[in-house]
């Protein structure tokens, strides 16, 4: 079974998929994201780290279009999407999960995924195939037995899985995962990591925000570490985590 049952050809070309240039976002006097630039290579898994309040979720909100940038650009495959609304970015291939899980409360797990299937990239009319594809995604994340349970009645772990299934249903090229492992036990973390590797194998590029350092170390190809909205380190996980600036930020307070 594959993550993407739809007919899109996998993008195997190694190139720049997403470019972030000079991104800024302030809330009142607080600079949540401060002149941040980075590139995302097709097929990689990038980890975005940083202490609480360092601006990780804000970066996701700016890339996905939930917030408007004060300055800077976001490009997807070279195309400037800085002014596009979130729904259009989703249809162009950017999907995200929410750190504070947000199931559509009164829709069943299946319908939660189905809406994304209908409206996401390459979405289409309401056909039985769309429902089948949604069911397969729920199977994939281990919610196969919960299809008809409304969002409000799912447990926290189930909601986290639903977030991922729903994001996948939009057939993303880039998937932004915001602390997908928070609240999971060791076995659940292992299952989730296996799932992320499988998603990557299906040619979906991943950006993951996560506080679980061992998990990040084993999963990510590259890390960017933020502090106060600025990048303080970047590189292979072992290198980036060994940098004095990073150690200071994490331990030095």
């Amino acid at each position: 079974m594959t993550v993407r049952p739809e007919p899109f050809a996998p993008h195997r070309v190694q190139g720049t998929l997403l470019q972030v240039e000079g991104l800024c976002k302030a809330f009142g006097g607080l600079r949540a994201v401060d002149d941040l630039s980075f590139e995302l290579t097709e097929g990689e898994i990038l980890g975005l780290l940083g202490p609480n309040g360092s601006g990780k979720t804000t970066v996701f909100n700016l890339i996905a279009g939930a917030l408007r940038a004060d300055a800077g650009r976001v490009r997807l495959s070279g195309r400037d999407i800085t002014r596009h609304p979130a729904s259009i970015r989703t249809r162009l291939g950017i999907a995200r999960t929410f750190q504070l899980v947000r199931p559509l409360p009164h829709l069943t797990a299946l319908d939660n995924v189905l809406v994304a299937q209908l409206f996401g990239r390459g979405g289409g009319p309401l056909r039985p195939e769309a429902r089948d594809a949604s069911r397969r995604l729920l199977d994939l994340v281990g919610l196969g037995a919960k299809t008809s349970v409304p969002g409000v009645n799912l447990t926290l772990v189930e909601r986290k899985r639903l977030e991922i299934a729903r994001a996948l249903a939009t057939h993303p090229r880039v998937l932004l995962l915001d602390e997908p492992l928070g609240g999971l036990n060791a076995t659940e973390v292992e299952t989730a990591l296996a799932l992320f590797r499988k998603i990557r194998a299906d040619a979906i590029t991943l950006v993951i925000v996560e506080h679980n350092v061992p998990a990040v170390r084993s999963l990510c190809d590259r890390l960017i570490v933020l502090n106060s909205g600025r990048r303080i380190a970047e590189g292979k996980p072992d290198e980036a985590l060994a940098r004095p600036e990073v150690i200071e930020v994490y331990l030095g307070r």
Partner: protein
Amino acid sequence: MALAGAAALVAMPAFTAASGVLNWGFLILLYTALAQSWNLLGGFGGQVNLGHAAFFGIGALATRILWLHGMAVFAALPAGTAAAAAAGLVIGAPGLRLRGPYFAVGTLAVAEILRITVGNILPEVSSLPAARLAAYAIAPRYYLALGLAACVTITARMLAHSRFGYGLAAMREDEEVAEAIGVSTFRYKLLAFIISSGFAGAAGGVFGYYHLSFYPQFAFNPVWTFDALLITFLGGVGTVWGPLAGAVVFLLLREVLALRLVELHLLIFGVLFILIVVALPGGFVEAWRSLPVMRRELVREASNSVADSVRRRRRSP
């Protein structure tokens, strides 16, 4: 059963000469159509329009004027509908940029301005001329209301099972999530608003064709909005059959209350509305459907949240 019900509704005028009974049928169907038109945007899309009366009024006025000027009602009614839908576009395009309570208050304000303006421009009562009165019959009004109620209900049913309906549902549940999964929420809101306004205008048009004499301003009275809301919530907001069930209950109640407690019946409706919203948020339709499930759900919900909080406590470092 639905088929038998429909047959009975169609055959009703043939079996009853009493225009009182047909009048009742007419009112139930008119209120069903009006409430369902509100439900399309409010119930399915979660956008609370408190200016619904404005579209009812525009439809009523346009239809009545055209009809009294000699246009056939079958042409006047679609024209009134189109006028209300166009007003929906004009008011909705800027108005829907407002969210939640701001949208609700904004629509109420626009509708009140319209009502006062109409009262100033057309202060005279609109009565049917003698020739029209002589030709007046309830049966054609009844059939018009029946056709309209059927149309709106069928639209709601189609909506509930369509891609459009799923987009509206996602938007109602969580607008930011809806956007994040690809729903162009503004476009869908506007489209639903136009359809809702158009049907409200059609209901107004049927009223304008039915009522013997009324002040134009009366068709814009906010009571049309609040009756539509009350009926929708009574029967079940966001359901296909809620408005019909609600209209029957509402008209029966109103009859009893208005006769016995003339002064108090508005207060009683107000209290009833709050009770329904608090205690029976799904209305009668949902309550009926979920009676056996409800207790089980309550137990499961409670055990889930306990399990969740235990889990979270266990995992926190």
